[in-house]
Structure formats: C-alpha cells, structure tokens
C-alpha cells in the first residue's frame, strides 16, 4: 500500500482552487500587515465594549472579548506565530524528508536501511508525545516549537517521496539515462526530480497544513506561544469557557484556522495537478 493512499487528495475544480488561493493570499497578507491594519496592537483593551457581538461588515467585524479587545486584531496577530512557525517547520520538514529520501534511494542499501529504520522508530512515537516531552522540559518558545513540528512532519514526506523515488529509480528510463552517461546530479536534475516534483508540492503543502494543525493544538493545550502574545489555538481555548455566551471568541478563530488548512491543501493539489503530465495517472508514466 502506498503512503499516498493515506493522504487526502482534494480534487477541487478551477473555481474552487481559485477561491482557496484568493482566501489564502488574503489571510497571509492581512497577517503580515496586521501591524499596519491595527497599529494599536493585539492587546488594546476597552472595557466599555466588552463581549461585543460580531457585526461582520461594520466596526469590530469579529466582535470583542471579555477585555474589550478587538477580535479581528487578535486573530490577525495570532496568525503570525501560527502561520510563521508552521511555514518554517513545513519547509524544514520537506527539505529534511526530501534529503532523507534521496539519500535512501541513491545512497545504496546501508543508507536505505538506516534511514528507513530511523523513520520507522520516529513513526512509532506519536508526535504529540515528543511535543509533550520536549516542551515540558524546554518550556514553550519559537525554536522548540519549530523543532517539534519539523520532527513530527518529516517522516511523511520521507515515506511518500521514498516510495515514489523507488518506483521512478526502478523504471527502465532511469537506467537508460545512466547508460547514456547521466550520473549523480545530472541524473537527479534531468529525470528524478522532475518526476518527483508534483509529490514534492503535495508534501510541502501537506506538511504546512499538518504543522498548522499541530501548532494550534499545542497552542490549545497551553504548550504553544505563551500569552500575552495571541495564537489561534490559544484564543480558541480562551473562548471555550464562554462558549454559551460569547461563542465568537472560540468559533471565529477556529473557522479561520480550518479555512486556512483546507485552502492550503486545495492550492497544493491544484499545483500538483498542473505539474503532472498529461496522459499520466501518477506522474511516473
């Protein structure tokens, strides 16, 4: 069974992926320029407007929390650690996983065995456990978080790519290229990486979305970015107690999180589809 069978594939049409792309772009821009949009920061309290309901298109579109803080500002500022840490971890995990897969494929039997074994063991430890241990001993912070998320994501990239590369490398056309004189880097550049490119995009976006989910879960558990800096998971947790009276404190940032995760996956799959050859089913033929 291929590792890919376990990963979701979202077949969104052109319109769907366009919507997802526009949403993702808007969220990223708004998060990056949160400082320009809300020069007052995420902590501007105004006790006169406590627990204001969302007006959606008026002032305070997402309402306020129990301290009268603008929820839109908190959501946008909270996206900074969520998206930033996840993105860095996703890139690191993809690079690490790709390097491991290449090493296992091209390095010969001992490397393949060693790396595969490490991946197996790593997979035998649920990521959340590693996170619990590391974060309980190091305390929360950006660097340990990135480390934990990277460690938790690289195995999936490794497995997907390793399976794909094993298929590709066994194909006669790779051998034909060797016979034609291609070696090492030339072989990689001309034949191996192009065949793996669609999967690399899928792996990157998948890592981004899983890292984002894990990051916000840790935030929810109180192991993420420490307050007063806001973070999506942490905002959701803070609103849970007031779910009956002020539902928006929890549900609106959570909805943002879900929409972002789905958009990332749709955009990734769309790019992968565009990179896949016409007339081929899996990118290998």
């Amino acid at each position: 069974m291929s590792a890919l069978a376990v990963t979701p594939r979202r077949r969104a049409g052109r319109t769907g992926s366009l919507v997802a792309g526009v949403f993702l772009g808007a969220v990223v821009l708004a998060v990056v320029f949160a400082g320009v949009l809300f020069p007052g920061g995420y902590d501007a309290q105004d006790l006169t407007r406590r627990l204001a309901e969302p007006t959606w298109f008026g002032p305070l579109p997402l309402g306020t929390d129990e301290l009268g803080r603008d929820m839109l500002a908190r959501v946008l500022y909270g996206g900074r650690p969520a998206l930033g840490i996840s993105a860095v971890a996703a890139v690191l995990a993809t690079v690490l996983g790709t390097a491991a897969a290449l090493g296992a494929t091209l390095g010969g039997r001992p490397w393949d065995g060693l790396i595969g074994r490490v991946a197996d063991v790593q997979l035998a430890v649920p990521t959340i456990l590693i996170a619990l241990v590391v974060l309980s001993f190091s305390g929360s912070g950006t660097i340990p978080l990135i480390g934990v998320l990277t460690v938790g994501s690289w195995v999936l990239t490794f497995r997907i790519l390793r399976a794909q590369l094993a298929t590709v490398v066994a194909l006669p056309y790779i051998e034909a290229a060797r016979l034609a004189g291609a070696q090492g880097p030339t072989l990689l550049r001309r034949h191996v990486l192009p065949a793996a490119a669609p999967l690399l995009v899928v792996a990157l976006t998948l890592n981004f979305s899983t890292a984002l989910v894990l990051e916000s879960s840790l935030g929810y558990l109180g192991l993420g970015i420490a307050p007063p800096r806001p973070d999506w998971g942490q905002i959701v947790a803070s609103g849970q107690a007031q779910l009956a009276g002020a539902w928006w404190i929890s549900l609106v940032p959570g909805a943002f999180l879900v929409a972002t995760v789905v958009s990332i996956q749709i955009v990734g799959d769309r790019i992968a589809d565009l990179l896949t050859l016409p007339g081929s089913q899996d990118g290998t033929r």
Partner: protein
Amino acid sequence: MTAVLSPSGPPGPPAGAPPDPVRPARPRWPLSARYVLSRLLNAVLAVWAVLTIVFFAMHLTGNPASLLLPIDASEEEITRLTAALGFADPLPEQYLRFLGQVLTGEFPDSIRYGGDPVALVLERLPATLLLGTWGMIIGASLGLAAGAVAVFGRNRRLRRVPVSVLTALEAVPSFFLGIVLIAVFGIVLSVLPLRGAGTPAHLVLPALVIGLALAAPVARVFRTSLQEGTGAEHVRLAEAKGIGRARVVLRHIVVNALAPVLNVLGVQAGVVLGGAVVTEAVFGWPGVGQLATSAIDSRDFPVVLACVALIAIGFVLVNLLVDLAAAILDPRGGRR
C-alpha cells in the same frame, strides 16, 4: 524465483500411495511461529527505541530544575536541585537508570502528588482505554461504511459524498471539532453534557471526535483496495464459478480489502493516542492524556515520563496486534 519456493517441476506420478484421501485436511494455521516471534522482537525494539528517543529529547532540551524554581532562584539553588533530581550524573548513568525505572516501573515520586507516578497513570488508564476503544470502533465503522458506499453505492454521484464529508472533517483540528460539537449538541441542542465523564452520554462526543480523525484515512484506503478488488482477475474467476454475487463480494473483495485497512489503523493508532491527549483536554475527560498535560503544567516530570512510557508501550502493542491480524488476512506476509 517461484521455482525456489516450490519446484514447479513437471509432475511425476506420485511416489507411493497417496495419503488417506477420505479425511479432509485440517486448515493450516496462517501464522508461523517465526513470524510471531519476529514481530514480538520488533515490538520490544520499538519500545526501547521510543524510550531512548524520549530520554534524549528530554536531555537535549534542557534542565527542568530551572523551570521548577522561581525565576529569581540563585545559581546555587539550581545546582542543588539539579543534583537532587539526578540530572548532574553522567548521561549514560542517567540513561541506564531511566531504562531501569521503565523495566521495574519504579519512577521517582510525583513532584506534585507525591505518590508513585505509575499508580497515578494506571488509575487513569481505564478511562483512556474506554475512550480510545470507542474512538477506534466509531472511526473504523464510519470509515468502512463510507468506503463501501463509495464503491458499491448505486448512485454514481451520491456515493462519493460520505468519503468527501469525512475528508473535509479531517481538516478540522480535533480540539476545534470538539468545541463545535459541544456548541451544537451541548449548548444549542442541549442534548449532551458539555464536559466530564461518568455516563455513556459523556462518552459520545469525545469518542466521535477521535473516530472522525480516524475515519477518513480508513475510508480512503478501504475504497482504494475495494476498487482494486472489483477489477481483480481472481474476482472474475470467482464470478465465473457461479457462486452468488454477495458471496463473491464478501469473500473475495471485502475480506481481501481489510488487510490494508488494518495497516492504516496501526499507523493511525498514533493519531488516536495523540487525539486522546487533545480530546481529553477539550472534554475534561479524566484520562492519561489529561494527566500528562496537567503534569507538564506543573513541571511534574516523573509523571510526564510515566505517561509517555505507557502511551508508547500501548502504541507499540496496538501495532503488534495489527501486524498479526493483517498477516492472518494476507497469508503472503505471515508465513515467512
């Protein structure tokens, strides 16, 4: 290479009298002792590897003594506490001591509760087992049902819907899914309790959250292997035998498709356990996961270690069972 395993050789006339032709042969046990042993050995190695990773993750990330003390604690106090906790000893010595603690189950006393951390964990274990088991049952049933509908459903358009819904729900982080379910069923509809444990009603939402995280991959894998099965030549041969359609589907397609599903359940056992940690926090479920989270909050690292060791062992055990069950379903794996 088949020739090595079973000489195809041209059959000669059977030498000697054939064995008693009247008595049917007993069915063969599908697992060889050697296979079971090798899986067991693998499981022990996996537990050891997990514990080693945990140990080094712990030591790479710093000294908890400084976290345990107030920020203004003096250098001297930190050194004294570090020594008292055993963190000043050479690393190999600490590593051996840690393995010894796991083997004997004698961890240092809990910092917060003062007692034996293993007892604390064992006390919470039944709740987590209950939640995990129901989560697995719900996830497997939902996933299998959705996968089967996707392949055998009559309406070409509608039959895709269940898998799509599960895949969409998969993108929702467990903690948020839990909160949405609480909002809908606990607050708006007021039919289920918001949090806590004790009655079957308390179990519904947390088990559903865990199950939904598990259902989507199960559904996809089941769907894929069912699709492969319906086109397989051995299924056409079974149809040619003239046995009923229901029997062909059940015996030759569905049961054959279960082995990959079991493998997914094994891989996803980590998701269930991780999900249990988060889900227990969301629903205030008094299990091992919640113990671990609160132990981290209070820097009660002996309890953290005991929890982690136990969860890791549970994970490896689940995978061992899954491996053996999958090998029974696919004899090509289990007889080597």
